[in-house]
């Protein structure tokens, strides 16, 4: 597996025993330590010159067996671990788990908690997309946007820090509602952020979206058709860039998503640029959702009354949410005890990564990096 990268010589007649391509192929290990893999992803790339023949992702470098860990934790405790899966949309991961436990308990959570959950979800989505935008720009060689994106993201992180007490791994959603009520400054700070965002989003277009070099790097590369997106199990912006309607918030609404008006962003291009535009437009949709809800947070409890020790009835429970990367499913098998018998997470990154090989074949090495950028991979989400 780790045959270091010699050029396979011309006189070897058949493909090498490891199945690593033919004569004249160049095999390169991109990662696990590489500036463009955003973590410890290991890609074994078979190249012909600059052209990619095959991409083989090797996973497991950051596998922490989160699913197994969750089996030994109670239904209150296991939620915090899921913040460490897709750390850029920690709130949404917690949301999925909380929803699943509530489904099992048949718990109705207060309206106020529902609205705040949606607000924080959308703020998380914007923060995640902003980081993705900066990192993608860095992947294609522009260094400045990264810092500009972090400026806005920092504002969101400050809001999170004030209300949830942490910037990245919040653990703010608990079964039954929220851990604490929102901070008194929350509404004011979010409104400030909205006005800042509307001011700065134009700069994103000036710096990157409209740039001719960027458009040429993005357009017509990494094509993924809608059929392939389905067969690889892609979800989220990756699939919506291929013209597939798959937004869980629209198709299977949870919390108050069915009561607010927003559009599901769908682009039909199927290339890297379509995926890029989906995410950029999704940020605007998230702002729209936040604007609708921020002045209408209902009064009331932030948490439903729950027992101290939660016990799910015997059975199987599944819930899904739309994270910044796609569909996150949580499947709990309960035997009636205080801890789950089995937990399975269906993470969006894993399925999206599986389409990379199909997308990358025949394109250049530089495009592979850009494609990985548009897939918005978070490696701990893939490995868990």
């Amino acid at each position, binding site marked *: 597996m780790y045959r270091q990268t010699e050029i396979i010589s011309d006189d070897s007649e058949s493909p090498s025993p490891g199945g690593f391509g033919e004569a004249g192929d160049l095999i390169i290990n991109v990662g696990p330590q590489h500036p463009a893999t955003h973590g410890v992803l290991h890609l074994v790339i078979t190249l012909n010159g600059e052209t990619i023949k095959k991409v083989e992702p090797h996973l497991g470098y950051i596998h922490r067996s989160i699913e197994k860990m969750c089996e030994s*934790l109670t239904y*209150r*405790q*296991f939620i*915090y*671990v899921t913040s460490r899966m897709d750390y850029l949309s920690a709130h949404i991961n917690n949301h999925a788990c909380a929803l699943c436990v509530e489904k099992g308990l048949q718990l109705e959570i207060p309206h106020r908690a529902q609205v705040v959950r949606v607000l924080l979800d959308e703020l998380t989505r914007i923060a995640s997309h902003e980081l993705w935008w900066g990192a993608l720009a860095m992947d294609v060689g522009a260094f*400045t946007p990264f810092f500009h994106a972090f*400026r806005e993201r*920092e504002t969101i992180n400050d809001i999170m*820090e*004030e*209300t*949830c*007490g*942490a910037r990245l*791994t919040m*653990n703010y959603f*608990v079964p039954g509602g929220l*851990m*604490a009520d929102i*901070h008194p400054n929350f509404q004011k700070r979010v409104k400030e952020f909205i006005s800042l965002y509307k001011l700065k989003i134009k*700069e994103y277009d*000036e*710096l*990157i979206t*409209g*740039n*001719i*070099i960027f*458009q040429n790097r993005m357009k*017509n*590369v990494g*094509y993924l*058709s809608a059929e392939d997106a389905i067969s690889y199990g892609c979800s989220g912006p990756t699939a919506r860039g291929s013209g597939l309607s798959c937004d869980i918030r629209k198709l299977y609404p949870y919390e108050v998503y069915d009561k607010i008006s927003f559009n599901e962003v769908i682009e039909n*291009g*199927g*290339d890297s640029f379509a995926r890029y535009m989906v995410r950029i437009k999704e940020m605007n949709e998230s702002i729209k959702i936040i604007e609708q809800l921020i002045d209408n947070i209902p009064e009331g409890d932030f948490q439903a009354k729950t027992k101290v020790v939660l016990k799910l009835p015997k059975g199987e429970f599944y819930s899904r949410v739309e994270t910044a990367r796609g569909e996150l499913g949580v499947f709990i098998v309960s035997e009636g005890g205080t801890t789950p018998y089995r937990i399975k997470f269906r993470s969006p990154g894993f399925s999206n990564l599986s389409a990379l090989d*199909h*997308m990358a*074949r*025949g*394109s250049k090495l530089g495009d592979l990096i850009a494609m990985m950028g548009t897939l918005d991979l978070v490696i701990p989400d893939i490995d868990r």
Partner: protein
Amino acid sequence: MSNTSKKLNNSTVSPSGLGAYFKEVFNAVKSLFVGLRRTGYYFTHHKEIITQQYPDNRETLNLPERFKGEVVMPHNENNEHRCTGCTACELACPNGTIKVITKFDITPDGKKKKAIDKLVYHLELCTMCNLCITACPSDAIVMAQTFEHSVFDRSQLTKILNNPGSKIMEGIE
């Protein structure tokens, strides 16, 4: 070539006409200048710099009151705390960060009363999930807003939260 690139060729729409070509070139050059103007703006406007110089701004650094830095047990001026030793925090903790060691005090009227001897807190294991704080029935522990936790020896991260010789407050059951 794989089928992917074939599809790409179909989707490429080449512009027709010389006017369209020059318009495309013009727009391309314009897009570059738009970007240059934006970076040039930031180059000349140093007020936009948002850097906070960390060790220098320790005095002015304001952390939100909810920031989860570390678990502490507040004591009043008589060296009294509110912990009853009920081990609710120990049970709530997902990764064994807290260990409550109890002892039996003899009250003045001769009864045995359960009280904490030590409340051991492993900062190196703590993930700041806040579950112990919400579980505590008598609000004996809170989150502190400290964040500079680095030490030279790992054993210094294991802390005993109750002060030596401390007692439980009157009226806390």
